[in-house]
């Protein structure tokens, strides 16, 4: 059990490292693009914007989920390997909304109609 946790913690750190590495590369690329004119804004402000957008974007998410419902018929018929929840199926909406949309779709799958 100890080894298991140890290995997965190391894997967790690796993923965090990958993420940092990726953001470093992205910042460099966008810096190269924007030249010296625009300094990319730092992390926290993005998070605030997102929370704002998340509330406003719920309507979009409901529509996206409703559209997704029609494709879900088949995945319900053959559960198991197929029908795995995926971001890609909610790609129409803004990204943070995708998480909500996936949840809503799941509810609708069960009840056969929008959740409210």
């Amino acid at each position, binding site marked *: *059990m100890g080894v298991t946790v140890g290995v997965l913690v190391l894997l967790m750190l690796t*993923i965090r490292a*990958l993420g940092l590495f990726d953001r470093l590369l992205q910042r460099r690329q966008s810096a190269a693009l924007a030249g010296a004119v625009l300094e990319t804004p730092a992390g926290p402000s993005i998070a605030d914007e997102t929370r704002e957008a998340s509330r406003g974007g719920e309507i979009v998410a409901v529509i996206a989920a409703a559209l997704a419902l029609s494709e879900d018929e088949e995945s319900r018929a053959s559960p198991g390997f197929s029908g795995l929840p995926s971001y890609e199926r909610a790609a129409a909406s803004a990204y943070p909304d995708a998480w909500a949309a996936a*949840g809503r779709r799941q509810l609708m799958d069960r009840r056969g109609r929008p959740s409210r």
Partner: protein
Amino acid sequence: MEFNSLWEGFTEIGDDPRIIVMWAISGFLFYWGIAKKKEPLLLIPIAAGILFANLPTEALTRDGGDGGDEGLLHFFQVNALNNDLMPLLIFLGLGAATDFEPMLASPRSLLLGAGAQAGVFVALLGALLLSFTGVFDFGLLEAASIGIIGGADGPTTIFISNKMRQFGLENGIAVSDIVGATTVAAYSYMALVPIIQPPIIKLLTTQRERRIRMPYPERPVSRRVKIMFPIVTTIVIGVLVPQAAPLIGFIMFGNLIRESGVVPRLADTAQNEMMNIVIILLGLTVGSLMPGRVFLQTETIGIFLLGLFAFMVATAAGIMLAKGMNLFNPKNPINPMIGAAGVSAVPMAARVVQDMASKEDPDNFLLMHAMGPNIAGVIGTATVAGILLNIIPQLVK
């Protein structure tokens, strides 16, 4: 003379009437898969394999050593199961079908996925304990096979049970033939997740905890990270737990051909036609490991009891770990229910969490948060499998 042949079958049934019990079990699995739609992809082929192994003929299961021709299902056992061909191709297909983004967006999922593996070790110890009491007769090899049921992962269970059986056979260690029983137990409990987990979750969480909302991640995981993840994971786990390399390597390779985006025809075939062919044949082959004389043992009851126990412990461990993590990070708490999804049983366990969350608060969308530990549980169980493959043979010797 010709008509005599009609009695041959009945004579065989008289000699071993257990096969009729197996017809009933096979029929029950058919009913479960078809009428109840529980894990039909594997339960239907497995039930057919059970039927084939319990007809009054060994035409399909003969091992060919006695002069008669080798049966086709035995051919598959040797050439496609024992060499890991079919389980690894299933892993390849699963990798191509899985979107690891929920886990990558929230790396602490991996901790929850690790916690749920406690079920494996507890069930393993439980099996050994039950043997001491004398009720059942499980050695270390059987105990490992039973423990892995707690990983809630079908192909891994097949993989480990079969490896343990082979190890015993090749090294002259007495080993019961429980591959069929552990596999059926694993798939059965995976199908029963919506019944097993909710009471445990209710018992271990307060309503306030179940109502915890979790923020959505700020930005999507970049394509670069999604491509590098499978490559790096193969190396990291390959170095740390070399025996897990085949399982991890194939699921990660499958995921890479998916995320690379440049070989859609390979990703498509890997998760569809190739996996379908393998599922049909793997199900038949696993089912063929359950002739009545092998399956109808007292030990089978023990396997099913311990398997259920393993599922329950795994669920509880995931939840308790999540609650423990909240102690250290009270500002950004985890909804402890998503710890229960760490058992794997993808995506059933994550759906259970979402359903329970919605009952308390219709606007709490936890599904993708639960998918993180859910997928992490697959990696966790494959890691545990590698550890068992490393330790058990050393302990047995």
